[in-house]
């Protein structure tokens, strides 16, 4: 599912698993992340941005919500932002999430795979990553403000960070 908050949107929109949202000031986008990765694209001059809640690293041609997979989420976000006049040359990216919530054991290190895949997808699109809050074993609640480009990150037992 894709939602756009450009017009008549609430102040903060929660972006669920596999969803993408676009927002312009004064609206904000939020997400709660575990092993998923939140990919933020921001165009500082236009003060518009998008947040994708990426669940898995690779679509391998599988159908489904574009934002569910890192490799399809980034092109999808660029397409949505392009409709609002924001193009990759003026954009920066921030990444958060990719935790391993159940400890470090086991072969399915999906958080780590999501981080690598999202990083590769952004590099392929030529977008610089200017902020990261990744890995570990705690959940994160993030809030993206398209006016400033700031992404606030909250985790249990830790002070809030801004990337």
């Amino acid at each position, binding site marked *: 599912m894709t939602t756009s908050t450009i017009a008549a949107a609430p102040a903060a929109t929660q972006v669920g698993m596999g969803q993408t949202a676009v927002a312009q000031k004064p609206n904000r986008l939020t997400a709660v992340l575990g092993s*998923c990765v939140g990919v933020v694209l921001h165009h500082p001059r236009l003060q518009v941005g998008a947040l994708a809640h990426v669940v898995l690293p690779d679509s391998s041609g599988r159908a489904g919500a574009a934002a569910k997979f890192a490799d399809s989420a980034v092109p999808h976000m660029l397409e949505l932002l392009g409709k609002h006049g924001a193009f990759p040359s003026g954009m920066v990216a921030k990444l958060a999430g990719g935790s391993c919530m159940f400890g470090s054991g086991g072969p399915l290190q999906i958080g780590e795979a999501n981080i690598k895949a999202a990083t590769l997808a952004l590099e392929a699109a030529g977008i610089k990553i200017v902020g990261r809050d990744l890995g570990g074993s705690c959940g994160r609640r993030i809030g993206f403000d398209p006016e400033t480009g700031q992404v606030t990150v909250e985790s249990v037992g830790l002070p809030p960070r801004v990337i």
Partner: protein
Amino acid sequence: MTAPTCLENPRLDVLHHLFASATHDASAAMCRWTDGLITLTLDEVREIPLEEVTEELNLGDELLTMVVLSLDGDIGGEMILTFDELNGRELAASLLGRPVGANPQWTELEKSALTETGNILGCAYVNAITRLIDHELVPSAPYFIQDFGASVLQQALMAQALTSDKVLICRTGFHKAGAELNWRVLFVPTAALRGAMENALHG
């Protein structure tokens, strides 16, 4: 014990029968553990798109207290018992025969009481499923987590998300003296365990 539910296809009907039986066993175990205080009902079994899970379960960005049991292996999964802070505190206090603790930090004894509750509940479910599929499921030692409920659920759902765009949800209600409690069991089988359960009941 089991409330009516809206089933969309025969596969879910099969799984509903299985989980109703497992919930019955879990309820009996919970009733013994809490001296008759707490019972369970299976309220719903259905599939929903992955994108709708957080909203459907109304997890939002709520901080929860959880006990997690992992079932390792291909035929495995995750079982998570969740409470809000108040309900978790009240259960621990009740089990320990003490007033609800005022200290915001959980003591080791309180954590242990909740972890043991998760163990008893999880083992009741696992035993019921093991009997059915004739394959031994070995749960990990339960562990205590306080985090965002949605964050923990994401990790648990990965095994299903890798192979399907929909996830199986079994909604369980907890009751104390007829009143519903804000507790939940989130059971997320791997695709292989889910297949084994369906095959066992079809066979």
